[in-house]
C-alpha cells in the first residue's frame, strides 16, 4: 500500500469513529433514546433533554477539535516521510 493510500485509510478510520460518536450523542441520546434517558437526571436536567439541548452541542465542538488534532498529527507524520 502506498503512502497516500495509508494516509487516506487512516483518515477514513478517524471519520468513521468520530461520526459514530456524532450520531450517537445527537440522534441516539437526543432523539431515539430520549425517553429512556429522561428517567435519569443530571442536576435539574432530565438526561435525554440535556443531550438534545446542551450535551450534543458540546460534543460536536469537541469532535471537530479532536479531528483537527488527529489530522494535524497525521499530516506531520506523512510530511516527515517525504
Amino acid at each position: 500500500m502506498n503512502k497516500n493510500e495509508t494516509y487516506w485509510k487512516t483518515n477514513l478510520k478517524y471519520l468513521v469513529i468520530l461520526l459514530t460518536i456524532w450520531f450517537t450523542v445527537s440522534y441516539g441520546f437526543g432523539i431515539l433514546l430520549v425517553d429512556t434517558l429522561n428517567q435519569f437526571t443530571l442536576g435539574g436536567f432530565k438526561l435525554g433533554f440535556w443531550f438534545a439541548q446542551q450535551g450534543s452541542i458540546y460534543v460536536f465542538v469537541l469532535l471537530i477539535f479532536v479531528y483537527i488534532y488527529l489530522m494535524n498529527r497525521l499530516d506531520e507524520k506523512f510530511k516527515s516521510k517525504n
Partner: protein
Amino acid sequence: MELQYWIWIAVGISFTLYIAIAIITRASSTGEFYVAGKGVHPIANGMATAADWMSAASFISMAGIISFNGYDGSVYLMGWTGGYVLLALLLAPYLRKFGKFTVPDFIGDRYYSNIARGVAVFCALIISFTYIAGQMRGVGVVFSRYLEVDITTGVLIGMLIVLFYAVLGGMKGITYTQVAQYCVLIFAFMLPAIFISLMVTGNVIPQIGFGSTGSDGVYLLDKLDGLHRELGFHEYTSGKKTTLDVFFITAALMVGTAGLPHVIVRFFTVKKVSDARKSAGWALLFIAILYTTAPAVAVFSRTNLIETVSNKAYHALPDWFEKWEATGLISFDDKNQDGLIQYVADPEVNELKVDADIMVLANPEIANLPNWVIAIMAAGALAAALSTAAGLLLVISSSVSHDLIKKMIKPDVSEKGELIAARLSAVGAVMLAAYFGINPPGFVAATVALAFGLAAASFFPAIVLGIFSKRMNKEGAIAGMVVGILLMLFYMTKFKFGWFGGGTEKDWWFGISPEGFGSFAMMVNFAVSIIISKFTPAPDREIQELIEKIRNPNDE
C-alpha cells in the same frame, strides 16, 4: 438618557465601524472579491462564519421558538450545530484543497461538465434567494422596531448599507465586517442572558443556571413542567412531534447546513487545508456560545412569562407588558370579563396571544436592565441580520459573474470585466432581495426553513460523492441533483403552497413534514446518483487524479 438616543448611538457607532472596515479592506481583484485573497486567519474566519450563519432568526426568534416548543425546539439546536461536524470532517478541507472560488466551480470541474455546473448554479441561486428574501425582511422588521421607521424605510436603509460594503469590499470587506458583527451580536445576546440567569437562579452561567433551582428551591425545569401541566400545555421537557419527524427534521437541518453555499464558500477564504478544519472548529465554538445559551433564555423567559401573567389582574401588570402590547407582539382579550389573564392551552379559554420574538426582545425590560443594554440588543439584532444578508449576496453575485459569465457564457472576459460584473450582479441581487423584503410573497417565512431541505437534497450528496467516490461520474451526479431538488421543490410546494393538489398533515409521506423532507430527498439523491453511475462510464484518469489531489493536503 432616553432609550431612543441610546439606540441611535449604538447603531450609529456599529454602522460607522462596519463601513470603515469595508473601506479599509475593499477588494481590488476577483480573488479578493470572491474569497478574500485566501488569506483569512482561521479564528477570524470562524467568527465571520458564525456571524454569516447566525441570522436575525437565530438572534431574535430561536429562543422564543424553543420557549414555546420545549423539547421539540431541539431540532434547531442540534440541526444548526451538528452540520458543522459534517462540514469540518467531510467537506471543508477538501473543497479548500480544490482551491477555486465557488461551489458550482467544484461541481463543474469534478464532474467535467458544464451541465453539472449549470445545475449547481441553478440550485445555488434558488437556495440563496429563498434565504435572502427572509433576511431582508428581518432587516426591515428590526430597523422599524428599534428605529421607529416603517418597514419599507427599514428595508431601504438596510439595503443601502449592505450594498455599500458588499459591493465595495466583496468577500474581503464582508469577512472583516462579519468579524466585528460577531463581536457585537454575541455581546448583545449574552449580556441580558447572564443578568437574567443571575436574577432567576443566582448562577452567572445561563447554561448551568437553567438546570438549577430558583429562589423557592425547586428545579426550574420541574417547575416549568408543572406549570405547563397545570395550564394544559404539553410538558416542556418532552415532545409533541413524532420521533421519526424529529429525526428527519434534525437531519435535514444538519445536512442542509453543510450544503449551504454561503457557508461552504467561507472555507475557501483561508490559507491552507489545515486552516479550513481549524476555522470550522472555531466557527462552531463561536456559534455554540449562542446556541447553548438560547435554550436557557427560553426556559427563563417562559417561566417568567407564565409567573408574571397567569391569573394576574390585567391592571397590575408590569410596565413592559403595556409597552409590548403597543407593538402587537403580545395581546390580551378578556373573554370572561374577570379582569384576570387566563393563559392556557385551550384556545377557547385562552386570553393571551404571545409572539415568539418577544421572548428575546423583551428580556432586558423583564430583567429591569438599563436602557443602554436594550440599545446594544438593537445593534446586535441588526448585526445578525446584515451579516447573513451580505454573505448570501456574495454567493448570488459570484454565481452570476464567475460561474455563469466567466465559466459558461464569456470565458475570455478580463479580470477587470469580471470584477465589474461581480459588482453589478451584487447590485442587482440587492435590489431584487429588497423588493421581496418590501413586498414579501406570502411564502417567504415558510421557505427560509426549506432552503435547508433544498441544500440537503441537491448539493450535499454531489459534493460528498465527488470527494469520497472516485467512481461517481457526471451522469450520476447530475441525475441525483436534478431528482433531489425537484422532489424537494415538489413536496414543499405541494404541502406549503397547496400546489399539485395540496394536502394536509395526514397526507405526508411516512409522516415526514416538509421541513424534514430534505433528508428523504437527500437519500433519494444518493440512491439515484449511485445507481445511474453503475450503468454509465467511469470518469477519466484526469478526474481520478484530481480526486487524489483533493484528498492529499501535503501535495501543494
